[in-house]
């Protein structure tokens, strides 16, 4: 029984590289440290390696009450955040979510995010596939994922 658990654990480690479900891969998922538990942004890269279009329709994070797709719009120096219903991923495309653009907005977290920690996240796609991966927390002003 114990060795079964060990094998499962090793299996989980082996797949902890790029998360893969259907034909979409997720890499470099990261967030910034925060001082309040109210909001945080997750950035990541989505790779649609398959022959068909995919659509990201839902994100889930166990440590946050909700996760929404948001984008930042700027007009005449005024910055606003707007929710998007989904993210389209045409076949063979890569989409990087980065600061000042589109991100997965986490709301009402259990705790503020601390630099160096990791938390789980699951993305759901329109075709019914979903996959889970870990998000690494970088410093509060980081512009790129933390180096391992």
């Amino acid at each position, binding site marked *: 029984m114990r060795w079964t658990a060990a094998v499962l654990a090793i299996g989980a480690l082996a797949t902890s590289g790029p998360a893969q479900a259907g034909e979409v891969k997720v890499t470099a998922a990261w967030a910034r*440290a925060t001082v309040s538990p109210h*909001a945080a*942004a997750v950035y990541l890269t989505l790779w649609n390696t398959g022959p068909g279009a995919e659509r990201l329709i839902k994100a889930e994070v166990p440590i946050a*009450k909700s996760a929404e797709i*948001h984008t930042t719009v700027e007009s005449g*120096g005024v*910055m*606003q955040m707007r929710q998007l219903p989904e993210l389209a991923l045409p076949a063979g495309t890569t989409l990087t979510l980065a600061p*000042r653009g589109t991100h997965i907005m986490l709301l009402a977290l259990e705790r503020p995010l601390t630099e160096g920690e990791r938390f789980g996240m699951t993305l759901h796609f329109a075709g019914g596939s979903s996959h889970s991966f870990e998000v690494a927390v970088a410093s*509060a002003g980081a512009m790129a994922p933390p180096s391992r």
Partner: protein
Amino acid sequence: MRKQSFLIAAAAVAAILFVTGASLLWLRFAAKPDPVAPTAGITPSVAVGGPFELVAHTGQGMTDRDFHGRYALLFFGFTFCPDLCPTELNTMALALAELGPLAEKVQPLFISIDPERDTPEILARYVRQFHPRLIGLTGSPAQVAAAARAFRVYYAKGQRNNDAYLMDHSGFLYLIGPEGNTVGLFRPGVAPEQLAAALRGHLR
């Protein structure tokens, strides 16, 4: 009678001048930076900025006069802002780092436009994540509104989610001169190198 119509005419002229000035300012702010002169920033054509009375992250009261005699680099934002505020504050910190010892002449400032939630205690934990000398300022809603008005900052509660709310706000960086007047304005998204080059031009 004559005097009255003169007064009406004068008031009309004053109103037209005001509207023209405001429009010019708006155009100036809204204009894309000149790609030929990426380091220039925008020089405000009318007075931007003015007196303010706020509370620092240390709990101490502070006014604009506390910063006179030196340069200040100012950003308006809020600590719950997950995407843009950390990005702009990081730009500020990187630009100051690039200036080396010259950065000592610049006081970085962050004014919260969300005084309901941004207490001095929250600000204290927030500002130290970005720059050791960054001063966070908040205050009563009236004090913050007055400061935002002086700098012509627009802010409003934006989209609401699960009782949480985000703020829509102007994202300019202000360079304030030693006399308290704004000498440079930078659009949101300015690159740290551009900001550093523009600061260097003013500090020399």
